[in-house]
């Protein structure tokens, strides 16, 4: 025998299905909305921030510039005026507010270069670093102390005192040599030819393709 209750239930099957659909669609409207987490997880970001590896000291940077490290990409976060007055050799100007312009992501989101952020001090560079790191960009560094420390240590290194250890003198010698490379003249060196501030050919920055392959069209 046919189950009468089942028959009665089944006669409403389209109504039930329609209601199910409307409830499901209504559920979408009613679901609590939240901002999607973009980029890496907060815990990961925090541990990246704490890690001291994200800093590069002025000495290391000077060394890499002098050795003409091809994988170095310097990004000056100060505004255009100050950038024109003075900047590190071969740096690219990218004011902090323009950091996420379309053409700048090609410089930032790639893994061919070590990107070094710098500004007058740490702060802007740190901000840029955190913003970019959150988006999971690779190989980002911050110049510790920024341009100010660059001046204090490389361009105008403090003369070590007599009672300082030998290392300090050695460091002073390297810094002095480095500063000469960057075009600073010292009275005791005047006779020798001051090397001109070298201008290596501008780097070609390869626009790295987006890692995600965009799906292609249908018909």
């Amino acid at each position, binding site marked *: 025998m046919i189950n009468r209750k089942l028959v009665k239930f089944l006669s409403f099957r389209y109504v039930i299905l329609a209601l199910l659909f409307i409830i499901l669609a209504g559920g979408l409207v009613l679901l609590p909305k939240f901002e999607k987490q973009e980029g890496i997880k907060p815990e990961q970001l925090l541990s990246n921030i704490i890690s001291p590896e994200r800093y590069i000291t002025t000495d290391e940077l000077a060394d890499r510039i002098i050795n003409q490290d091809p994988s170095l990409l310097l990004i000056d976060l100060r505004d255009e005026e100050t950038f024109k007055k003075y900047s590190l050799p071969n740096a690219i100007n990218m004011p902090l507010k323009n950091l996420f312009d379309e053409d700048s992501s090609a410089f930032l989101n790639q893994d061919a270069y070590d990107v070094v952020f710098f500004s007058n001090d740490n702060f802007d560079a740190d901000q840029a670093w955190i913003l970019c790191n959150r988006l999971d960009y690779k190989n980002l560094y911050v110049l510790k102390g920024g341009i100010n420390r660059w001046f204090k240590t490389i361009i105008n290194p403090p003369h070590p005192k007599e009672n300082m250890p030998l290392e300090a003198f050695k460091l002073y010698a390297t810094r002095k040599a480095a500063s000469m490379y960057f075009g600073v003249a010292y009275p005791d060196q005047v006779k020798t030819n001051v090397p001109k501030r070298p201008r290596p050919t501008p780097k070609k920055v390869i626009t790295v393709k987006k890692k*995600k392959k965009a*799906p292609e069209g249908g018909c």
Partner: protein
Amino acid sequence: MGPLLPNDIIPFEWSSIIAIVIGIFFGFILESSGFSSSRKLAGVFYGYDFAVLKVFFTAALVSLIGLLYMDYLGYVDMSSLYVHPTYLWAAIIGGAIMGIGFVAGGFCPGTSLCAVAIGKIDAIVYVIGIMVGVFIFSELYSVFEPIYTGYFYGNITLVDSLGINPYWFVFLFTIAAVIIFVLVDMIRKRVKKVFY
């Protein structure tokens, strides 16, 4: 997470095999729903069979709601899916030509392929016709080019062009679809039955 192929979760080499598997299911569903019969398809325009409309709208609703839920739960990123680009006049004119072709020929490309597979001769002729149509378009491309490439609005969605909340849109769309289904059944009861 998803989509899996573009994000390299499934290696690229698999794409052709996946294409065949998806195609098999697509063909099976279309054929089993009766889309290999041109008279069943054409029924939607004369009111004696609304299978096309029902299948079409149910599929659109299920996929829309499903994708939105999957996007919400983080299984798939809606923004990285391929969105059919909007060329306003190309879509309207192309759609209009396709509409006439649909009612004249009684198939659309997907369904004609199903019909070819089960040996319908009219479908084979139809597929040859489509190829001739493509050939004509390609040969006269310079004539069609202004429409084909003009009025480009980008790969936009209704969210961009109407500024509407997608969830509300889907909700209203669902209600509209249910009403259409009911109406369509009422119409079918009044129209003389056609046996095919």
